[in-house]
């Protein structure tokens, strides 16, 4: 049986209590994007500053409110993607989503997880791996992926505007 300590790892609680990169950036030049999780009422607000020349996510600030998993995940994501090239951000996003859904698809018997494993190949998730315990609590997966889905949406909006 999955225990609370699987879900609420110490590093997650640390990011929840002391979120990194909290704040706002002036819009424009930064791009603002919001995401909502109707289940918990979680709200994630991201301010993204992408250098169009270098395609680097120069800066990111986070805001919003919600459960510990959504807010900690947002903080951990901001630390993981800040200063990274967009293609690397995309790779991290795919890897994180794969991390969140491998167990799910295994449980449902739809996949042995090998296709998702490919997304994780060669990607260093670091602290983000602490969120893996969330997959044992299926209703909370959306809390953990909200920040990443919002980031993906924001970067798509920037690309479309650019």
């Amino acid at each position: 049986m999955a225990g609370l300590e699987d879900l609420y790892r110490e590093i997650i609680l640390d990011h929840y209590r002391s979120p990194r990169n909290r704040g706002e950036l002036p819009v424009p030049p930064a791009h603002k994007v919001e995401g909502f999780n109707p289940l918990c009422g979680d709200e994630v607000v991201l301010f993204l500053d992408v250098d169009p020349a270098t395609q680097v996510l120069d800066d990111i600030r986070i805001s919003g409110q919600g459960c510990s998993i959504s807010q900690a995940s947002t903080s951990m994501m901001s630390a993981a993607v800040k200063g990274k090239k967009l293609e690397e951000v995309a790779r991290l996003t795919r890897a994180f989503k794969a991390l969140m859904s491998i167990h799910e698809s295994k449980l449902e018997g739809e996949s042995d997880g090998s296709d998702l494993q490919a997304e994780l190949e060669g990607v260093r998730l670091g602290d983000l791996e602490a969120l893996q315990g969330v997959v044992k609590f299926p209703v909370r997966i959306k809390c953990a992926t909200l920040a990443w889905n919002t980031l993906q949406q924001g970067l798509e909006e920037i690309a479309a505007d650019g």
Partner: protein
Amino acid sequence: MSALDVARLKRDFPIFGREVHGKRLVFLDSAASSQKPAVVLDAMDDCYRNYYANVHRGVYTIAEEATAAMEDARRKVARFVNARRAEEIVFVRNATEAINLVAHSWARANLREGDAIVLSHMEHHANIVPWQMLAAERGVELRWIPLTDDFRLDLTGLDALLDGARLLAISAMSNVLGTMNDIRPLANAAHAHDALVLVDACQFVPHVATDVRAMDADFVAFSAHKMCGPSGVGALWARHELLEAMPPFLGGGEMIRDVRLDGFTPNDVPWKFEAGTPAIAETVGFGAAVDYLEAIGMDAVRDHEMQLTRYAIDALTDRFPESLTIYGPRDVSIRGGAVSFLFEGIHAHDISQVLDEDGVCIRAGHHCAKPLMRHLGVPATSRASFYLYNDESDVDVLVEALAKAEKFFAI
């Protein structure tokens, strides 16, 4: 001393025989849906095993028995809310469908652009969205009764709101705040402006003796699943002459008297609103739930819940004087047993997750009342809600589990 022998009542409900994570099940989410006593399960089982057939058209014995059982349930539900006649009860899927039925049938036949509907800030989405859909389609204006600082309806501007209104659609008991709204004076005010009154009573009927005639309402919606009955069936009560004048809602079998290639003649009330094969066994179960509640006595249920709600509010505020805020009236004479609260620094969803470890079921989120949550300025609350099978020991487990959650998330 409780008005009810809860230890005995708990034994009526098979689910309380199970454990969750090795702990006794402490079910504090009856405002979302209640548990079912064995008599209700047995009644449905008996129907499926011994006399199940489609209702109303069969001429063989078991079809007649099924029809009789379903119509018997209609009489029981009608009596339970003091309807004048059984035909004033329309069986629907749930209170949400009952409200949608009124929005599609009565409102679309009677409301024109510029007409107004009065709602309140404490409504469940089920009593908001059907009217917003109608408003978007018909250019009907929605007006909102605000709330006071002590979580009650602010009626100071009621007459102005009702001026030009055709309908007042109002909750009898808030699923978030627990606040009970005294329907009779609201109905008097609405009728003085020639507006009809729809009551969302799905939190009220399960907990308080209900008299639709004393309320002087025009439509009353409620669900079986919140009152010890099964999911999948609910009721719309409406005055007979209103139902007679209303066009049908869904078209299909059962709701017709005759169908020709060039049209149809609708069936009599209430069957004209009951298209398609209904939830037969579940309706029988609804009747059994009403029998169960009547045998206990709704006044005893209400007394018990008032005592237990007072105990819970006191226990929560005594134990967490700084960290916990209750959203709802303190006076248990004007409220039901849904107790919403916010814990400083801990999201409702995290609280619910930690409480689950101790077998405690509470709800966390916006409780399908987002306009109310915005008014309160909170994204989500935790909600413990009580029913006849809860007692002080359940509240004690809740309080200890909350203390554990507070410690777990302590900064």
